């Protein structure tokens, strides 16, 4: 595949993620400012940590005066799911170790599912993934910065309403695959039910572990489900 095609793949797949991230990042910027973080710290957290759910949790914990070591531990627990996602992605992306150091920074829930499901017919390319991940990262960074700077002027109701964007992204990825391959549909539905049951039965379990348990446990069904043709 030509270089320009790989970049175009990255741009067209990065755009919906960037659109989904922007309002969430702006919300983060606003909340973080309200919890007393400086604009530099807000932007720095988005640049260095780059993990939505963990950042929201950290800001909440900072506001309630929890110790830093507890926040770091909570972040580790919530974000450990990316270990699973990187494991699956690393097998599809043939890259050198220095490139891996950069590309792995771009692994998020969203880049993982888009890269896994929307890969080119010829497979996932490092340049395509990089382009997509960069767009997502820049949207996250600029959104947090804008939210931090303009915290007092942004209409929160509108930004909140835009939070549906990422769910629409997930749905748009799932529906066509689930329609084509019933095994994927079954696994996704059961996984959603397991995640819901876990959140009801064990409300103290972090959402990170709920996701890890549902993903690991329910995707194992795929081992016994009959005949998914090999296209990966």
């Amino acid at each position, binding site marked *: 595949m030509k270089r320009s095609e790989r970049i175009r793949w990255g741009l067209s797949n990065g755009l919906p993620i960037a659109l989904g991230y922007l309002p969430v990042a702006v919300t983060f910027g606003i909340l973080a400012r309200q919890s007393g973080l400086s604009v530099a710290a807000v932007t720095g*957290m988005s640049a260095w940590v780059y993990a939505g759910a963990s950042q929201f949790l950290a800001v909440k914990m900072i506001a309630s005066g929890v110790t830093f070591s507890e*926040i770091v531990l909570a*972040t580790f627990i919530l974000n450990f799911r990316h270990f699973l996602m990187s494991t699956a992605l690393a097998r599809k992306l043939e890259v050198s170790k220095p490139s891996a150091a950069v590309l*792995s920074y771009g692994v998020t829930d969203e880049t993982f*599912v888009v890269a896994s499901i929307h890969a080119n017919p010829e497979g996932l390319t490092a340049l395509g993934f990089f382009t997509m991940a960069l767009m997502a990262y820049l949207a996250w960074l600029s959104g947090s910065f804008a939210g931090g700077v303009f915290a007092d002027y942004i209409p929160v109701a509108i930004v909140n*309403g835009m939070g549906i964007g990422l769910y629409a992204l997930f749905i*748009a*990825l799932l529906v066509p695959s689930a329609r084509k391959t019933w095994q994927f549909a079954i696994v996704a539905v059961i996984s959603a039910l397991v*995640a819901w049951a876990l959140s009801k039965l064990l409300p103290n379990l972090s959402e990170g572990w709920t996701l890890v348990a549902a993903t690991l446990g329910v995707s194992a069904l795929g081992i016994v489900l009959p005949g998914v043709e090999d296209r990966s």
Partner: protein
Amino acid sequence: MIWLLLAGMFLVTYLPRLAPFLFAREIRLPAWVQKWLKFFPYAALGALIFPGILTAVPGRPGLAAGAGVIAAICSLFIRNITVIVVLAIAVVLLLQNLGIP
């Protein structure tokens, strides 16, 4: 002091993302594990969508779920993900201002 926290958070978010890239490809996985991995994204999607979507629009679970259903129906006909994302956002913003629960 906040920067110390950020450095700590950086380490515990980056290392789990990086580690598999450094060793995962060198390990030969049996066929059944590869089959398992192939289902990861679909199981993850299911758990990412539900029950999270119910809290996607603060205080408006019905509105968010409705927008999700509309997004799902449109996904049957429209393959462009960006269009679906924009559509869902538009639906929520419109209905939000009409006072739909």
